[in-house]
């Protein structure tokens, strides 16, 4: 084994594995496109141009990277503590709702963000309590909570927070509470998201609390013998995860014009929690990897605008590619498998 492959300082193996998975995703995506009668080269060309071919495209890439970066952090903190927290979606909805409700009580940006984080964390609590005190598997509880949150949002949109002038949307975020815009529709949300990722990294790897969380994620029994409290670690993992997704939901509504509201059928806040899981897995559940991975998926999403118009390919194809990437990432020891196959064919 070469030294560079197992260097503890910069471990490039997971990075290469993610790149391979992305490549596999695009290859199988191309086969799907051909099967349905589209031209994959044309589709991918416009996907790339749409994402990076102009300043507007780059701004759009950063804009789409923001919410999934935060929901990915939720999932990553979960896995690092040994749980599969699929509840980012529900906390995201609650963050979005909170931003609409509370900025209309007091038109202050920080208040809106804070309440978004708070309600996001609050919605993560039932799953945490059920997990710690009743042993309910978090995958089941968080999925149920996501659905309950979803119908709650739908009720708010048509019910108490419907916009009287535009009944399919909620009322708008007041101007004073909107996130400042950098340009081309991009708000400062992306900066806050990157800061959140860096803070998460510091929390997990440079604080005692983070050490305890990671220790109970690797081995609960050993962590308990080491004087740590795995139950509290799991509680904090859910709470911080909820905070981050709640922030994501609040910023999605407060930072994106021209609507600055939750739109018809909740369309502009749906699916970011699920996408975040893919982002986290491709970023190898590491906050810094997640920044890169979120930028990659943001790029894909931004590129669909031109791909739909010029290559006439439905934007859902990027979700197909995303699913294949995640399944490929799930192949254990992908790098070693490929190295062995490669050496077997060439070096022997």
């Amino acid at each position: 084994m070469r030294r560079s492959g197992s260097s503890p300082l910069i471990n490039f193996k997971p990075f290469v594995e993610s790149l391979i998975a992305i490549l596999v995703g695009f290859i199988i995506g191309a086969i799907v496109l051909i099967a349905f009668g589209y031209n994959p080269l044309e589709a991918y060309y416009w996907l790339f141009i749409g994402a990076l071919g102009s300043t507007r495209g780059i701004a759009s890439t950063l804009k789409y990277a923001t919410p999934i970066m935060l929901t990915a952090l939720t999932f990553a903190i979960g896995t690092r503590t040994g749980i599969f927290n699929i509840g980012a979606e529900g906390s995201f909805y609650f963050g979005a709702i909170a931003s609409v409700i509370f900025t209309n009580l007091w038109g202050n940006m920080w208040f809106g963000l804070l309440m978004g984080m708070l309600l996001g964390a609050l919605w993560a609590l039932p799953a945490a309590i059920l997990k710690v005190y009743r042993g309910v598997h978090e995958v089941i509880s968080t999925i149920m909570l996501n659905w309950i949150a979803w119908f709650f949002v739908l009720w708010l949109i048509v019910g108490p927070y419907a916009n009287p002038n535009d009944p399919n949307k909620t009322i708008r975020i007041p101007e004073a509470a909107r996130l400042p815009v950098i340009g081309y529709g991009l708000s400062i949300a992306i900066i806050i998201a990157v800061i959140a990722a860096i803070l998460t990294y510091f929390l997990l790897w440079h604080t005692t609390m983070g050490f305890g969380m990671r220790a109970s994620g690797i081995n609960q029994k050993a962590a308990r013998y080491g004087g740590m409290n795995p139950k509290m670690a799991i509680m904090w993992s859910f709470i911080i995860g909820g905070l981050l997704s709640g922030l994501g939901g609040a910023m999605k509504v407060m930072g994106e014009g021209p609507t600055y509201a939750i739109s018809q059928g909740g369309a502009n806040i749906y699916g970011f929690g699920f996408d975040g899981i893919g982002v986290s897995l491709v970023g190898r559940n590491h906050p810094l990897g997640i920044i890169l991975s979120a930028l990659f998926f943001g790029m894909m999403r931004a590129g669909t605008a031109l791909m739909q118009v010029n290559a006439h390919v439905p934007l859902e194809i990027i979700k197909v590619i995303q699913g294949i990437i995640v399944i490929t990432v799930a192949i254990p020891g992908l790098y070693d498998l490929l190295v062995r196959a490669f050496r077997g064919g060439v070096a022997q």
Partner: protein
Amino acid sequence: MNPGDIITILIMSLMAMVPIVLTSVGAAWSERAGVVSIGYEGVLLMSAFFGAIFAELARNALVGLIGGIIVGLLLGMLHGVLTVYLKGDHVIPGIGINLLAMGVVPFGILAYWGTAGQHQLPHDAIMWHWRTPYGEISPMIIVTVVIAVVTWWVLFKTPLGLRVRACGENPEAADALGINVEKYRFWSTVYGHALAGLGGAYMSVDWLGLVHKTMSGGRGFIALANMVFSGWNPLISLIGGWLFGFFEALATWLAPKHIIPGQFILMLPYIMTLIIVAGIIGKARPPKWDGKPYKRE
């Protein structure tokens, strides 16, 4: 509410029970052998979609159901290779399958039928139903009951079932007795996903007669909750599945009555699932080696 309404709700719950029970029974068998999967949601959705295509091409709902089984079979093989033979994590491939379904189905509906998000099946591609004054009854209800009973019987009353359960409880001992643990685990996973595939196809070509991009509606996870609720027992999951189906039927029946906002009624199955699972799980004991890869020494 009059007696007729009660019969209507009971029939609706039997119809709603089918995909949940089939998935629970399959998942119970797979976990009894030691393989966990959370990808059933994606299996239901993808087999509903591909099952509808098969049924339309053949102008026959039965072909659609078989198509659904084949989709489940293939996804089960994928999961089996990753977890049983490559010894990978049991949860992550399922996340991948669910994400894949969320892409393939909306993309496929648009690319294949050219409609956004939903497609209505033609009459000759939908399963024959027995029409009663209180609602329609599908023959698949009987098929589901038979599958649940037979699966229970094989799993608990035959040598084959004993060997399957040994792989989930104590694979080392099973191995020592000459049982090929990997083979048993692999085919158990395939069987579990194939049953979910049948349940998915039932939703599109039989029960609802349409394909919608979110039609699985969390049933893959409700089925897992039901599996735990039933103590990994196919026979009890028949009763549990009917209970979950009942809440769904009740929500569907109540929704147009405008007693309280419809959204709160639609929450009902999910809230009840949470409550039932929270009340029961402390006592539930999964197979000892459930979700743990087995490597020969």
